[in-house]
């Protein structure tokens, strides 16, 4: 599992193109925040999860790397959850660096401990984004186990759109849609939850449930998936 996590982080941070893209995102977030755009939280940084998580499994399938890995004594679930942890570590690193940059830039430019960029607030913002990103990454991972390339992004978009369709005319349909949205894309105010307010509330419970559902689905689909390669 550790080798899988290490490989994922190395894949992401060893790719010059991706590294530049992440660097640009971090810089834009830093200067947006420093210019007062960060009052409501991070604006640009959350997009990094899409760069880091898209095609996490499908690219290995199409390149044949997965077949080489699975010819070793590695369980498919070990590979899959190694990828997921790799995404989390990569995103965590990105958020840590971005938060540190914001802290440095804000404190160097204002010369004082600005409340908006206090270490505690930055940690809470990073935590908020990390947990939201972890949820999105689980959905992307699930789609990536059976969709090609970066079609997992499309899958996430379609899921989001379907669950946010305009109100249905029929009451029972509207209720079903609301229930599906609440349970499959639960909204949690992590900023408050991380301060200990309602951490054990219903919203957090739904979040954990939905995250588990996506990861279990990913594991089931991936375990059953066939992996052809090459041409006869």
């Amino acid at each position, binding site marked *: 599992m550790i080798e899988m996590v290490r490989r994922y982080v190395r894949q992401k941070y060893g790719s010059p193109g991706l590294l530049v893209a992440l660097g640009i995102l971090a810089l834009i977030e830093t200067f947006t925040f420093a210019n007062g755009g960060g009052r409501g939280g991070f604006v640009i940084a959350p997009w990094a999860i899409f760069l880091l998580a898209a095609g996490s499994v499908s690219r290995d399938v*199409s390149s044949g790397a997965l077949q080489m890995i*699975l010819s070793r*004594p590695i369980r498919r679930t070990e590979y899959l959850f190694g990828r997921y942890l790799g995404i989390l570590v990569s995103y965590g690193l990105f958020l840590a660096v971005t938060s540190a940059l914001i802290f440095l830039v804000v404190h160097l430019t204002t010369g004082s401990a600005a409340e908006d960029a206090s270490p505690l607030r930055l940690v809470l913002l990073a935590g908020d984004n990390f947990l939201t990103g972890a949820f999105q990454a689980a959905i992307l991972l699930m789609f990536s186990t059976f969709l090609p390339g970066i079609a997992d992004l499309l899958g996430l978009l379609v899921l989001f759109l379907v669950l946010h369709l305009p109100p249905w005319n029929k009451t029972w349909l509207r209720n079903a849609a609301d229930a599906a949205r609440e349970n499959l894309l639960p909204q949690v105010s992590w900023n408050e939850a991380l301060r200990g307010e309602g951490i054990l509330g219903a919203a957090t419970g739904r979040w954990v449930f939905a995250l588990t559902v996506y990861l279990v689905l990913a594991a089931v689909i991936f375990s059953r998936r066939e992996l052809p390669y090459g041409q*006869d």
Partner: protein
Amino acid sequence: MIAVSGVSKTFGRFGARRVKALDGVSLEVRRGEALGLIGPNGAGKTTLLSCLLGFLRPDGGTITVDGKAPDDLSVRARTGYLPERLGFDRDLPGRAFLAFHWRLAGGARNRAKAEVEAAADRVGLERPALARPLRGYSRGMLQRIGLAQALLHDPELLFLDEPASGTDPRGVALVRERILEAKARGATIVLNSHQLAEVEKVCDRVVFIDSGRLTKSETLRGDSATRRRGLVRVSAAGLAAAASVLSREGFEPNADANGSLRFPVGSDDDMARAIRALALADIPLYEAKVSAELEELFSEKARA
């Protein structure tokens, strides 16, 4: 032992997209045996290899390796695999690639450096190349480093898909040496290759696959060899005389357009007898060898 019994595999569900890639394939690969899979493009060889490795699940039939499923972790711990085209993280240096596979196969971290360098030496990859990312490798270098990773941990089961593809003549010889080494230490080898001369040099047996069916199995070595041809090349003037001498010795020679005579031989002793008879008849002999002539088999089967 690898046992394949009545394996079928179909891709696609409807109409023209439905392709029966394997149709009731049965075969056995004995421990320590080197088996060659030969057949035209699209015959089902790679599908069979994918099934043997557990990447694909057959629709029908069974595959076992020493009585276990091919994707059993204990089987995989003893497996080395080289795909036809090595597609791995392109930004990863060769050294890190080999170290990663060493660790995945359960190798100790503190031995990784030494093992990686030894593996690279075995396939003729120089140290500076190990520091370069895989994106900078030529096709031949990718095959070499792929073979190096397949041979890590001296696997008992070796699945090789076109191992010498894209390599120069030195690389082809090197791949052959490494396969023969693995065979000498008792590894069971399944080799999928279109380089029939190389297949003949390393395999004990070949199976011919066409349209998903196993249509022919030929033993190339040992007393039970089923396909052994003697070939002698003499001058054009001596061709008729040589054919006559060989016929008198009980062989059934056929002359080909290159001025060579081909005839079935039962053993190496038969070939020695043929050479002695030609020498005693004072017929100058330019070339003499025993060959399975897989190209001929391939052509025969392809025509059929």
